[in-house]
């Protein structure tokens, strides 16, 4: 059938199984939006307040569901506003397709109204990007974008479509989508070497990350842990793969990781990294990360091997498939001594103090878990609250803790919550944020209100940019440069003005009451929780430090 470019965009999206997109209209995408108008029954469009929020929503949708998120924006500022959202997805390997409009092909390069070189700007933050200059190539380019976003290590792909291409017509041939499979598995010899190293190890330690979630290797990871009696630590991206209370779960590793995780890393004789990349916030003392231990790395991306930390053995491939081939070679072992040591290590973990009359971050988060239903997705912004959430959220399932880990983008949480709620409507979605992050993208609230999304925002308000303030305390002799926020925001009135429900609570008791009401209300809610600005994220391992230098008070 003969279709114009805009119609082709819709047809390919439908062909790829996309039923929801996030975006913001504009001149260059006028025709695409015109087609969306006719196709509302096939593709739901969520209009945000700002393109950044749309990108984070597409990202959050993808993190929560595992499907590829799609965001649509106009040329120029529409495209530049996507940049933070695309970079967030890129750093955390989240599959996303961003579609941007641009000026007519014959106007490109003439500094037209709302023209930027989108492909140039997004080149280093996408897996790949395209400009479509010929309508006959549009359908295949979009299909290719979806393929690239999902294949191998996932990531964002951008397709820039000049306006005239959306008008131009050509013959469209529908195609069935083929599920992309990552088939490559290491050969038997490589698997044997690694299996032997694991079988011979007395104190093996598993370290897993987001790769386990992208490949869906939850069962395989748990099998490996059980079969070999191998305790596990995880990066912030790996949160939720193991239940928080699993005795083999030693918690998160990194700058604000658990003491147990850090001690275990120092004691292991074999670290098995699975779908994790030894980022600087994880292995923050670089090559001294382990003490004379051998390291195995299993990852889909060859580039990660030896990038940050030199490793002894590596297996390249989809971690689920690799683990499936590796598991039969792993001997069942008791490792009694190591288990005793692990039990001892776990006792040394940091426990914060409880109070009745004052709001403490860890208590707020723990109470939240107690009151919320099992089907819960938590999103965060970036800063102290993010680390508290990572430390105290009792996640039991993968894809239930969504955070901007690699890029560390403040303002991620609300958009992500919108995407998560739309992707998983039967889940309760809680957005944990700080007063700093909340002010960045609070424009997400009216979006949630418009679409009747009962997202509960918990603002840990310490009247400060707490994480930077904490760094200033440690590194800048408590010279708090520009980190005290003297905002006079009344969160209750603000919520009211946006059409949401607002609460301000002072004690744990009040918090629980407010949260119960919020859960019952089925409305978008904001709960302001004032906390002391002296609250620190503990433990803290300064960059380059070792486990002896760990700060716990």
């Amino acid at each position, binding site marked *: 059938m003969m279709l114009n470019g805009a119609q082709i965009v819709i047809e390919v999206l439908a062909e790829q199984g996309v039923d929801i997109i996030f975006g913001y209209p504009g001149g260059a995408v006028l025709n695409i939006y015109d087609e969306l108008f006719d196709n509302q029954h096939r593709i739901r469009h969520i209009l945000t307040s700002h393109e950044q929020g749309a990108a984070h929503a597409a990202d959050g949708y993808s993190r929560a569901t595992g499907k590829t998120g799609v965001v649509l924006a106009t040329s120029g500022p529409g495209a530049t506003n996507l940049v933070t959202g695309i970079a967030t997805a890129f750093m955390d390997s989240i599959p996303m397709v961003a579609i941007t409009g641009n000026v007519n092909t014959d106007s490109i390069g003439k500094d037209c109204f709302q023209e930027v070189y989108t492909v140039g700007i997004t080149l280093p933050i996408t897996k790949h990007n395209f400009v479509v200059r010929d309508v006959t190539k549009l359908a295949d380019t979009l299909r290719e974008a979806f393929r690239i976003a999902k294949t191998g290590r996932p990531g964002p792909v951008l397709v820039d479509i000049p306006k005239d291409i959306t008008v131009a017509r050509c013959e469209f041939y529908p195609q069935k989508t083929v599920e992309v499979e990552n088939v490559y598995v290491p050969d038997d010899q490589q698997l044997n070497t690694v299996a032997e190293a694991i079988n011979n190890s007395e104190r093996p330690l598993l370290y897993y990350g987001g790769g386990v979630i992208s490949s869906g290797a939850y069962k395989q990871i748990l099998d490996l842990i059980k079969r070999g009696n191998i305790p596990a630590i995880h990066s912030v991206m790996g949160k939720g793969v193991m239940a928080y209370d699993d005795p083999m779960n030693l918690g998160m590793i990194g700058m604000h990781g658990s003491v147990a995780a850090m001690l275990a890393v120092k004691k292991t004789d074999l670290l098995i990294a699975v779908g994790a990349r030894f980022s600087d916030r994880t292995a923050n003392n670089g090559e001294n990360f382990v003490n004379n231990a051998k390291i195995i790395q299993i990852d889909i991306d060859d580039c990660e091997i030896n990038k940050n930390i*030199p490793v002894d053995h590596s297996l390249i491939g989809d971690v689920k498939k690799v683990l499936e081939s590796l598991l039969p070679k792993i001997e069942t072992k008791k490792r009694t001594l190591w288990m005793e040591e692990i039990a001892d290590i776990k006792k040394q973990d940091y426990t914060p103090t409880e109070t009745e009359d004052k709001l403490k971050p860890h208590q707020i988060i723990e109470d939240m878990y107690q009151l919320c239903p099992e089907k819960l997705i938590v999103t965060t912004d970036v800063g102290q609250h993010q680390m508290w959430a990572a430390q105290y959220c009792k996640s039991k399932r993968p894809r239930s803790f969504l955070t901007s880990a690699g890029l560390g983008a403040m303002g991620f949480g609300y958009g992500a919550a919108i995407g998560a709620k739309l992707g998983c409507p039967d889940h309760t979605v809680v957005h944990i944020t700080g007063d700093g992050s909340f002010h960045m993208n609070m424009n997400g609230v009216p979006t949630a209100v418009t679409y009747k999304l009962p997202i509960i925002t918990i603002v840990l308000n310490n009247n400060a940019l707490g994480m930077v303030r904490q760094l200033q305390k440690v590194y800048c002799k408590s010279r708090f440069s520009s980190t005290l926020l003297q905002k006079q925001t009344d969160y209750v009135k603000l919520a009211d003005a946006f059409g949401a429900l607002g609460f301000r609570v002072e004690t744990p008791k009040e918090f629980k009451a407010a949260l119960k009401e919020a859960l019952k209300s089925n409305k978008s809610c904001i709960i302001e929780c004032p906390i002391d600005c002296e609250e620190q994220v503990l433990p803290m391992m300064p960059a380059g430090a070792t486990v002896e230098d760990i700060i716990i008070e």
Partner: protein
Amino acid sequence: MKRYILSVLVQNNPGVLARVASLFGRRGYNIDSLTVSETNNPGISIITLTVTGDENILEQIIKQASKLEEVIKVHHIQEQHALSRELLLIKMKIDSETRTSLREISEIYEAKIVDLAPASMIIELTGTTQNIDAFLGIMKDFTIIEMCRTGVTALEKDSSKI
């Protein structure tokens, strides 16, 4: 630190050079020279680049470049089994005295004098990087008006192909 020569086969699409160059900038690798040309297949171009670094950097460069969608193959050229060439064009200031000397030196290096004007001449030399460096070392005793060199292009000697 060592010099490595890499041949990168890429799809001949607009902007592909920018992608390869951007990768090097993004990852902080230093490109010493870079040449792009067509191959016998019009759909494929070849980028030859020389980089300085250690084995780890080389490993990362090869892997990261291979990951780019439009890169077909990255090949590390082993210099001892390869022919590598650069082209130099150099414009020298001359007078009656230096003209003869420059002619003699050019003859020794098998360089060609391709243009002669009353006060200048242009010399062309094709050779290995070392060859050109040596020739330039001598030219520095005279007055160089301007010069440019193409950077390395290289092929391995055996009958296989990348």
